[in-house]
């Protein structure tokens, strides 16, 4: 195996090797070099790209998706103080939640983990989140993006209501809206005026990452 710490991080993540990954992260942290920390973060992001591809191609399933998401989030948690100390900006805050009436939270949680490991601050409002609570969080946290998850077709109407409420309160322009979950589609996103639909958590993370680079 290569000695390159970036390669090591990536391969540990892809081999689901928690100990190896955390050791590699520790080694980076010990160096106390913000540049090396940034390299490590990039390596994790590359690893997650591959995870996403394996999931989309059916090679991996939920178990691996959830586990790698947790690993990456933990690694990121250890690296981020170093990045912050060097004055590197956070990519911004993302508010997430599952819409009113719906208690499914697995997809939302996975997305939250991935977004966190991509360097976003996550404010998770939980499940069954009322329209007004999404709007309040948008006001309080001034997020770069607001993410809604919905798996029940009967609850899909809430997605549009949240977007309307954001507009009504003059909050819509300042942020992007991303939605996902089995009850929603690309077309639905267009209809209700969301900025993007994410078929899976990794794609969702790519989308908000691209937004933050705009």
């Amino acid at each position, binding site marked *: 195996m290569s000695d390159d710490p970036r390669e090591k991080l990536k391969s540990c993540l892809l081999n689901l090797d928690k100990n190896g990954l955390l050791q590699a992260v520790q080694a980076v942290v010990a160096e106390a070099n913000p540049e090396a920390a940034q390299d490590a973060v990039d390596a994790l992001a590359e690893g997650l790209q591959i995870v996403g591809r394996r999931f989309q191609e*059916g*090679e991996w*399933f939920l178990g691996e998706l959830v586990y790698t998401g947790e690993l990456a989030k933990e690694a990121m948690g250890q690296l981020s103080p170093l990045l912050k100390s060097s004055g590197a900006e956070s990519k911004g805050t993302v508010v997430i939640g599952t819409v*009113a009436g*719906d208690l499914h939270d697995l997809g939302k949680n996975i997305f939250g983990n991935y977004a966190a490991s991509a360097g976003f601050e996550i404010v998770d409002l939980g*499940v069954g989140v009322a329209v007004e609570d999404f709007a309040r969080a948008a006001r309080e946290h001034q997020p770069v993006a607001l993410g809604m998850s919905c798996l029940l077709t009967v*609850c899909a109407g809430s997605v549009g209501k949240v977007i309307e409420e954001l507009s009504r309160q003059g909050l819509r322009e300042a942020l992007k809206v991303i939605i996902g979950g089995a009850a929603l589609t690309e077309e639905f996103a267009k209809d209700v005026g969301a900025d993007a639909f994410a078929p899976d958590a990794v794609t969702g993370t790519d989308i908000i990452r691209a937004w933050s680079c705009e």
Partner: protein
Amino acid sequence: MHAPVKIELQPLGTAAAVARGTQLQDVLHRFGVEFPCGGRGDCGGCRVRVLAGSLPITEDQRELFSEQELADGWRLACRHAVEDRLVLEVAQWETTVLVDHGELKFAARPGTAIVVDLGTTTIVAQLLDLQTGQVLALESSRNPQAVHGADLMHRIEYGLSKTGRVELVETVRSEVGAQIQRMLASVSNTDLAIERVLLAGNTAMHHFFCDLDLEPLAHAPFESEQAGFQEIDPADLGWALPGDPRVQFLPSLGGFVGSDILAGILATEMHRSEGIIALADLGTNGELAIGNRDRIVCASTAAGPAFEAGQIQMGMQATTGAIAGVEVAAGELRCRVLGGGEPRGICGSGLVDAVACGLETGLIKSNGRLSRGSISLAGRVEITQQDVRQLQLAKGAVAAGIRILLGRLGAEASTVERFYLAGAFGNYVNPTSARRIGLIDFAAERIEPIGNASLLGTKLALFNEALEGDHFEALRNSVEQIPLGVDEDFQAYFIQETSFPNL
């Protein structure tokens, strides 16, 4: 060679002309007879007695029947084809109760009544003689509401508008009404008076039939205040029935767990058992109840359509042409096709078998990954990676639900005395395969198909309440519903259970 032959089924007097050589199983299946072991000749549930004509004794039947029984004409319907004119007595239509512990005790009284199992997919009704406990007529038809979605959630959504609700309510009421009329027309006695019509079904079907507000069923926590016992004036249903019966719907247990499971608890006698009994009815929703006379817990877990072969590339219902069973023989996959002809697709039990075989032969890894693009079964029928993924979600949700319920009871899978599988899928699925994929982690000999537990229990409710004080309302209050959506452990268990056991 394929000239039709006449076959007559007693005691209902149903008759049909079928092509010579047709499997008896296919004929009886059309008339609502259930094949608990899926037609493998294991269980004896499809027993028939030859009243006229003949069915040659096959060797394997000697194990199940005594010499005397064979001499009396008892045979397993699933082992025979129709070669000549036949008159058969169908045992399932004779006995009122299929549960093994004890016969039906009932207070015999003159009169007739009707029981209905109002299922999301199928509606089954029986006309009963309250004196003898016998089934006088039987009807089974597909729920015509399905045009507004096979999925209950789609139907509920449709029913949220006023016109949608009226349409759904009327569709289901008139279908049950028509079933009743057909049953009455089929009996020779023209001056029957019906005393009572008793229905059971899940909470959504209960609300449709009783025309109740659907809004509480459209969002969390899915609790309706009106889910209790309901009585409806037959005039409001647009039914004109002899005897002016009381029409009543049994109460739901909470959330989506309906009176079908309440009836199932009665049918399995869980509420009286000392040992722990489990009951599962697996469709797009997995309805579960586990417990004994001290405590019973229940839950509804979303499984998705995989057990009914929905969203499966070559999925189809368990009818002629469906691969219903797969086994490994000499390293090859061997398929059992319903009706014996060319395979056209795969049904839920076939999918479970196929995946179990895939795990055995290494074609499928424990994380569900196929070792190659797809697995060919027979003819052009194959299963894909996506099919396996759908099954993983369904089985994960059910297995996680069972773990949560056992945890609440402080029980272990190994202490469950009997695991009853109700409903169509439960009837056909091979217990060994169900265990191999980790759907139900119980020894195969403790898993038992129970058929239509809802209908059975509804009959018990009808016959028993006066006699035993077994009042369903009291039972209902003692059963605790566990909402899985807010359970702390569900998610972790679900993820673990989406994988297959690594043996």
